[in-house]
């Protein structure tokens, strides 16, 4: 994204605060006027009061100066506050938009993007963008106004003397332009070295054990110091250029005043100049160069804000998970779900499902069994629309799943995953996660049915906090809560991914009861590990290496004595070994 584009986007992003932004810009006018008035007043005082030796005049000009200084401070505060307010609003709304965006990105995006990077967009990049309004670039507009105003004022007062003060400007401009070029190169180097240094740290801190075990610590330390020195040297180049700019502006400032004194002297000898004008010039020019000195710094914040802005917009522009057709229909399932020759692969050449055919009737409970990687969980991801089939189709009644509105499709389902994830917040919020409107009585009933009321007592009510990711609860307890959550949501279809990890006998017993409750009168797809659950299912689908190899009831499959019968035997033996 080019700089112009980013600025354009930023401008569009500010549309809700145009009013405040314009007010902030307009406030620069009184701020500038009050600043310009100061040298003018001193000059006038010299001319009017000092010359006439009138003490009353002195009091009058001093009081005026006093008032101007206070008004300047007042307007400056208003100006800064308004501008800062715009910046804070921007930060708020960008964060909100980014967060909303993240909620809608496709699973494929998350597969490819490290979470740390997304987090950086929401924190560091937004912060850096807001610097534009706090310390940085926007105030350049005010500085420019001040500089132009000063020049205009000086020209209006005395044309010849102004020309003298202008002599230094071309030198200043070309010098600054040149140094800015160096600065840009130096900055670029610093930035790339810093990111190198950071990725070095990131990588070697993560792999420190490996480094230690291979006795490579001193080599890596030396390598780190080499990077560290490079970075330091690059920064010192920046320091040199920065110091140069600072000193250069200072020197030009002094020389300009010298020129004004000289030309003023000549003009004065011809009787063409008053002392007051002369003093005004000296005063104005002493104040003129300070903002110029800051320009270089502001340019740097401006640059890094633009980089951050580019990254933020890139994330905002990432295509979201969308409906595949233009006029999607609301999802429903009245008779059955049908997998017709379904194939799927996450990447090319690595088929995870191959020509799978099966039908699930409404109200049926179907178990999926097979080894890890056989394709069971892929079935659940396809059916809920997280991924699209790469071959064949999935039909709900007679409608292809791709015709559905994705939100309405999701609302048919509730999922109880292996590793239950709870969000920090109250127990109530977590339990009605699938149906926000659930009343407390409903929640309590569901907890009772799932034999989970004891958790409520243990934690102290529905308002109890569950901790980060629900860490107040054990794995089994979390699963129990997820089952309760599913019962409250009362979905059309339930997807249950049984936990493989062992839980204690008491929790196990409660889980069995909860599962029975949740499955009652419901279509269910169960990735099953417990024999007891599998036996109770209406039908069992056996997967192996992405293919559906057997299906039928437990008794039927056992009688066949095929793959399923062996899996059952294996599970039996393993469960006998499982330490309790």
């Amino acid at each position: 994204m080019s700089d112009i584009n980013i600025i354009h986007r930023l401008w569009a992003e500010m549309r809700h605060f145009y009013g405040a932004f314009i007010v902030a810009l307009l406030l620069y006018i009184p701020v500038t006027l009050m600043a310009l008035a100061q040298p003018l007043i001193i000059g006038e005082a010299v001319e009017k009061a000092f010359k006439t030796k009138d003490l009353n005049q002195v009091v009058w000009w001093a009081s005026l100066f006093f008032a101007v200084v206070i008004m300047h401070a007042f307007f400056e505060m208003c100006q800064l506050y308004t501008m800062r307010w715009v910046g804070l609003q921007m930060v708020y709304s960008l964060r909100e938009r980014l967060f909303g965006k993240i909620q809608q990105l496709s699973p494929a995006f998350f597969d490819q993007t490290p979470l740390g990077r997304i987090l950086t967009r929401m924190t560091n990049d937004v912060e850096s963008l807001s610097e534009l309004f706090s310390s940085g670039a926007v105030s350049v507009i005010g500085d420019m106004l001040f500089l132009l105003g000063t020049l205009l004022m000086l020209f209006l007062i005395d044309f010849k003397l102004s020309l003298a003060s202008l002599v230094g400007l071309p030198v200043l401009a070309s010098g600054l332009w040149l140094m800015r070029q160096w600065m840009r190169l130096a900055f670029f180097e610093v930035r790339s070295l810093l990111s190198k240094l950071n990725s070095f740290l990131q990588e070697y801190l993560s792999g420190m054990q490996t480094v230690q075990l291979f006795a490579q610590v001193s080599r890596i330390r030396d390598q780190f110091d080499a990077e560290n020195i490079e970075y330091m040297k690059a920064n010192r180049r920046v320091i040199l250029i920065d110091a140069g700019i600072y000193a250069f502006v200072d020197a030009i400032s002094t020389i300009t005043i010298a020129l004004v004194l000289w030309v003023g002297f000549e003009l004065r000898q011809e009787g063409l100049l008053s002392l007051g004008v002369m003093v005004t010039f000296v005063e104005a020019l002493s104040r003129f160069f300070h903002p110029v000195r800051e320009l270089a710094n502001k340019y740097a914040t401006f640059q890094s804000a633009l980089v951050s802005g580019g990254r933020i917009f890139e994330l905002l522009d990432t295509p979201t998970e969308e409906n595949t057709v233009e006029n999607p229909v609301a999802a429903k399932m009245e008779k059955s779900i049908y997998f017709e020759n379904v194939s799927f692969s996450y990447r090319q050449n690595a088929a995870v499902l191959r020509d799978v055919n099966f039908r699930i009737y409404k109200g049926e409970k179907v178990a999926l069994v097979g080894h890890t990687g056989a394709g069971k969980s892929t079935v659940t991801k396809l059916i809920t629309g997280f991924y699209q089939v790469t071959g064949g189709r999935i039909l709900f009644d007679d409608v292809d799943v791709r015709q559905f509105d994705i939100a309405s499709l999701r609302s048919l389902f509730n999922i109880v995953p292996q590793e239950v994830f709870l969000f920090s917040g109250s127990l109530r919020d977590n339990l009605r996660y699938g149906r926000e409107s659930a009343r407390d009585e409903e929640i309590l009933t569901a907890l009772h049915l799932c034999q989970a009321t004891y958790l409520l007592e243990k934690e102290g009510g529905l308002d109890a906090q569950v901790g980060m990711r629900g860490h107040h609860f054990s794995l089994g307890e979390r699963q129990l809560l997820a089952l309760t959550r599913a019962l409250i949501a009362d979905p059309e279809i339930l997807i249950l991914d049984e936990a493989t990890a062992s839980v204690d006998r008491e929790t196990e017993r409660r889980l069995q009861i909860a599962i029975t409750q949740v499955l009652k009168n419901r279509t269910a797809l169960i990735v099953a590990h417990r024999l007891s659950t599998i036996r109770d299912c209406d039908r069992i689908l056996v997967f192996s290496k992405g293919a559906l190899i057997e299906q039928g009831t437990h008794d039927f499959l056992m009688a066949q004595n095929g793959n399923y019968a062996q899996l059952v035997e294996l599970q039996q033996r393993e469960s006998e070994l499982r330490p309790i």
Partner: protein
Amino acid sequence: MIHVLGFKPARGAVSFRQLFRPYVLWLLLGFVFLLLTNAMILMVPRIINIGVQIVEGKPASMDMQSVLLWLFCLAILGALARTLSRRTLFNIGRGIERDLRNHLFYHLSLLSSNFYEKHSVGDLMSHLSNDINNVRMFAGFAVLNLLNLVIIFSGSIPILISIDAAVAFACLLPFLLVIASAQMLTGRMFHRVKEYQASLAKLTQHVQENLSGIEVVRVFHQERFEEKKFQKTNQAAYEAAKRVAKITVVMFPLTRMMCGLGVAVALFVGGREVVLGRMSVGDYVEVNARLLQLSWPAISVGFILSIYSQSCASLSRLNELFKQPPQIVDGSYSDAPITLIDTKDLSVRLGQHDHLALKNINVQLSRGRVIGVVGQSGSGKSTLVRILAREILCNEGQIFYNNVAGSQWKLEPLHNQIAVVSSEPFLFSASVRENIAFAKTAASDAEIIDVVEQVGLSDDIAGFPEGLQTVIGERGVMLSGGQRQRVALARALLVKAPVLLLDDCLSAVDSLTESKIVKSLRQKGTDICLLIVSHRLSAIRHADEIVVLEKGQIVQRGRHEELLAQEQLYSALWGIEQLQKRIKS
């Protein structure tokens, strides 16, 4: 030029004094440059004064030409001195930054897994960059401005008094207010900034949790709900930022106003003096110029104070890290090659768990023998390997290498002689070759090709776009699990260590290939101590001794046939494995 003087890494907490010590000479030099800079700067208003007097037509101590020459020289020399002083003093900041970062990395490289399990790398990183930055800001920016402040005030005040004592005292009064108000505001500011940072940390945490649970959000279609929840957190951060802004927005204009008031007072009192003929217009202009020169240093007081308090907090945070003692301490003994490793009644407790991960373990590795270790997940196999590699320490019992207690060994030669391969190895985002040669950077191509063949990677590498030079991405993401494991094995084999510990390091490779690799290891490594952990019994059935672990204890040991005959855990596991093979085939 400065870095030759660098700070020597040492153990324990560091103080500002230690950090500055190597730079004392540079600090002195910077101070001298700063004195020069200010000397010239302080002369400028006086010359302008003379210039104005000449223009005014009053008798002056020099003519216009000299004034111009003086100003010109002062401008050039002042610029030079200014550049040198800023460069010298800011460079110190960067030097200290590098020293501190080095010191920290050095310290982190001494800490073992118990530390890294408690501290996430992300946390460490953000800590590092922010805290080191704050210290650097103090060492460079704050020090320069502080020195500058002192010099310019102590230079200006006598001159101002010499011009007109009454005017000087009157117009310096507001400057005292500047300093007082800056101190007051920065105190408040510091608290608010802290609150703001806390609110940002909460926001980060919120987003992090949301990202980790994003799939749940999608499944439950709770995007709206999550957005609403986020609004609260976002709002809190906004409010905190606004509270900070309220101070910063006031601080600048206020300090600037105080300086302006100084000028107003100068006009009032000084104007009176001029009118009464006790002061020249030139003197008045000089006073004004001097006040202007003082305004930036006065404003900087607030910055200096806030940077100072922030850097103190940062340094104490860094010192928290420096105070973490390394768990495994270097000894002095070394000896090569290691031909015997003996453990005596080892017991290990991991983290805060109340059960023992290993209990009364006695194993012996010796040159030429192959030890196999089996057991279900959680039985303590990996812990045993980590103990043997001296990656973690045991709580009870002892471990001897060549009959010398592990605690007496120097770590580097010890680690050099023990090669470990885990089932989830850490690879670096470098080329395949660089990864394999990680512990032996000078390895020849022939050596590399040799180990590549030994681990059966030749065909895989031939298929990579750039062969051995292919870069494998962060942690080796470009490779499959099996390829990663074999690269890690090759890396360990290359060093030809006398001890080789394999922790289920071929779990993602098919069993046939695993057996083949293990067989070749057995044949080639007849003169090393070899320990193989595997969840596949077929891979270790030929071992000289097989140790069966259950819940951290050795429940069976012996050769394959003996263990089968005992009809306990080992034979049950063997039965399951055979069944699995049948199902798969």
